[in-house]
């Protein structure tokens, strides 16, 4: 797992690979994610990804119709909650199990394609005889 991915630098892969580190840091990460408060206004983590980028825009275009609709709904709901300065009722909070990375696989796929294009664009050709 590389540290520098298309979604910014991340040590998550390193942490996850070490049993000791993940057993220490996982409770902290869960606490932190809850504290961040986005789940209280009905958002998932991938709704917060910086979307003003070509690759993320392309990935958003690849969401299935259902996923795209749900995302638009969550963002609308969250905007409303933000305007009224109120959290959603507790039964509408996003739970840990619901907070899935629905967009990340698409972003990684687009990044892989971009990387491949870069590779082909900068290829030096030598023919084996």
């Amino acid at each position, binding site marked *: 797992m590389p540290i520098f991915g298309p979604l910014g630098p991340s040590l998550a892969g390193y942490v996850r690979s070490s049993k000791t580190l993940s057993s220490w840091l996982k409770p902290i990460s869960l606490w932190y994610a809850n504290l961040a408060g986005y789940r209280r206004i009905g958002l998932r983590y991938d709704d917060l990804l910086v979307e003003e980028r070509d690759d993320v825009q392309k990935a958003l*275009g*690849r969401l*299935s119709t259902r996923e795209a609709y749900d995302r638009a709904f969550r963002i609308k709901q969250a905007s409303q909650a933000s305007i009224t300065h109120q959290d959603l009722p507790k039964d509408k909070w996003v739970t840990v199990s619901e907070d899935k990375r629905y967009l990340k696989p698409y972003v990684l796929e687009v990044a892989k*394609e971009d990387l*491949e*294009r870069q590779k*082909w664009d900068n*290829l030096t*050709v030598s023919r084996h005889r």
Partner: protein
Amino acid sequence: MLRTSTTTVRNSTRLVRSFATVVDSTSGVKVAAIDNGQPTSAVTFLVKAGSRFENKPGVAHALKNFAFKSTNTRSALGTVRESELHGGVLTSSLSREHLALTAEFLRGDEECFVDVLASFITGARFARHELNELVLPVVEADSIAASNDPATKALEVAHTIAFRHGLGASLFAVQHPSFTIDDIKAFAASAFSSGNIAVIGTGIDQAKLSKLVEKSLGKIPSSSSAAASSTKYYGGQTRVESSSPLQTVFIGFGTTGAPLSDLAALASHISPESHVKWSKGISPISEATPAGTSVQAVYLPYSDATLLGVLIQGENAADVKTAAQAAVKVLKSRVSETDAKKAVAKAKFRAASEADSRDGVVSLLGNKIFSGADASVEAALSSFDAISSSSISSAASTLLKAKPTYVVVGDIAALPYADELGL
């Protein structure tokens, strides 16, 4: 000195073969190759995945445009860049019966290109985003271009009227198709099996091609050849409004059963095509055709049916009517002895010169390879030798007994009705 040169000549003639040998490889895929000693090679994977086999309208068209997109071994970009580096050309084309995936390349690169073609057959990914981003825009552009061309439109409609189902299915998807990626996957899964694929190589050694096909298609699911529902000819007439400046009339007749060479000869008899440049030709049709109007003979043989007719196009509806009347008169008149000889020679030359080109070999031998018939150019040409004026006339009279397929595209208020032409 003299001796060495004669042996070289003899050796080279031994290498040059003008017929394809069909070999069933152990995986069940038929492999045929012709090597005329040309500097480039081409390999065509001919798949029984034409529009007559499709499970939903337009799926065959989408599958054709899915060719050379990402597979388990290569991405879409990788396929294009790699073949560019080798200097090869990849094409996919669709007919009513077959999907042809062709790679043309320099001799020596066959391993790479057979692998590119085979990887689409064995491991195409059919990603949903590729359908939306790469395939559907092209499918849509194809459909729009086809619907704006009155000749294509007339032939599409004529097929639908003539055969209704199977061969009547359009080659083109509608502009906003309803199929999903799962329909395409299901169609590909049913089509890409051993009995449905024939590999035709030109400029490549038979043994080498068989070995490569064996290696790359060895694990393909085996099946017997897809059986299409048997074709029935109906006929009928329709009028399609179109704002195109070209007024178009198609008059056609269909038969079922394996295509006869007599009908090919009849088509070249009606064809008013001139043999020399800047001349109108001496056919009675071209004499009666007003300037600015064109008449073409249409001969479309399929594995179990034939559609034969004339396509008349011109800017003026009255001129089109005059030309159509002349064409119907020629269709209905008896073929004289001299005309028959001329028509047979013309048809035979046309078939022979078609066999010179790569696409021609595929279309000439494709059905024969699938049916296991003698797939040589010589056999295809020798069928013309038995044709006489009486056999053409009898073929024509049985053809004309059927109900005509009459299609009008353009200004439907001005273009003639079938009975006005004596049909």
